């Protein structure tokens, strides 16, 4: 996803490391950013909002 092999690059220690280009967001691959950061934080915001809404709704019905 957004990944294309470009050319080999050297680490400077004599090892050749294949350099891969990713679509980057805050210096990390976009797919990881969306899964881990947006995935978790978005989930947490929605769940907290749902919990507060349901608590208020349940309180009004009592």
């Amino acid at each position, binding site marked *: 996803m957004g990944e294309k092999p470009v050319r080999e690059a050297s680490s400077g220690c004599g090892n050749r490391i294949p350099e891969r280009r990713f679509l980057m967001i805050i*210096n990390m691959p976009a797919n990881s950013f969306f899964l881990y950061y947006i995935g978790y934080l978005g989930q947490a915001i929605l769940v907290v909002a749902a919990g507060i809404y349901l608590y208020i709704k349940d309180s009004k019905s009592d």
Partner: protein
Amino acid sequence: MILAVVIIFLASVFLIGLAASRRVKDEADFYLGGKQFGPWATAFKFASTWESGAKLVGSPAQAYNTGLPAFLQGLTSPLAYFMSFRVFGPRLKTACDHYDSITTPEMLAKRYKSEWVQTVCAVALFIGMMGTMLGQYTSIGQVVAAVLGIGYKPALVISVIIVGAYTVFGGYCASVWTDMVQGVCMVGGAACIFIFTIRAVDGWSISEMNGTIMARFPDMLHITGGATMTMLTLITYLIIPLFMGIALPQQSVAIFSMKDKRVGSASLVICTLFSTVLIWGLYLAAMTAKAYDLVSVESTDMLMPTMAMMFLPKFLAGLFIAAILAAIMSTIDGVVLVASSILTRDLMARLAPETYKKNPVQWARVATGIVILVPLILALNPPAAVFWIVSFAMALTVFTFVFPMLGVIWIKRATKEAVIIQVIVTTILIPLWALLGNPGGISSLAIGLLVAPPVFLIAMLLTKPQADPDTDALWEKYAALKRDKSSGT
């Protein structure tokens, strides 16, 4: 100072347990605390039990070693809390009250009208609980030994005596009260370790940290850690937590003991905030340490205690060490009570009912003591079999109970034959799979996920449910819940 803080913490939880023992009047008080807990107690009980010592020690170590994939184990936690408290929770609580049950096998026996269900479920659950306890005992022994600078065996004995004492005397109430203290230590400790670690790096930001990691260890930011994790394992880690509220009896008990459904709504908010601070604080601290070579440890399990002692003021370092102990103890006390309730309610109450009824609280305490001591003896000199049991304990517990419990709250057509067959299959297959070394790289969790659903569903479709007015009455209560929800009452 660190040692003093840890000792004060251990003494505090012990005294809390003794105070809780005064509230225990009957077995319902001992095992469910009288079912009167509000949102903070419920949330801290639920989250502290779920976020075990693995989250404070093992998972940050994994983040240090492999990067982002360590997040996977907690990635669906917010949704899992929502599922537990609002999707499964209301019906689970209704069913617990309807059947007036204390243990999960007891509830299943009443739902499916079968003592065989109670027996097979109790056996499977007991094996699973013992395995979980062995794993937690080993962890707490190692951490306390490293922190106090004593041997593993004395460290293990000291830790188990403390958690055992407050659980034997105070039961579920003690476990809830101590879990509240332990939860505060866990969240406070995680926040502190994160703040002080990033302060050790000039100009820290997530973007800067990622840039450094990409240059030095690019696989750590790869979605599966550079193919160190299979997609099946990734999917398993994402799905399993969603069912923790019904599939793990040590979690379900927090739902059974809620005062009412409003508690569930508040609890899921508190649990989500709890886990967010814990997960993000610890994992980002660990990845920062790796990116900037802040620490050097022989074993990455000592990463968090070492970082605490390096970066935190002594008092806060002591608090963090206490938080690690707290996390493990909060898991142990929850599991101990579930295992103890099996011995009393699922076995003794059926085999020797007259003896049991004479003093159920006393027998509950005796059973709790037995459940605490037996794994201790095994953990002192763990035979090879212990590691085998620990490896499949979680999978066995989850996949033994998830479908039978769905039959309590959702699947009215579920039959006792389906439950018995599925429980027997998973109780044999999952340990056997672990014994064979997880063939094909498929974990015991994954094999449970692949096998339990079709076995249950096929057995259910091939057998006929019996007409049962009690089950009809329960489903009418569920319908009433749905009507109340849609009318806003």
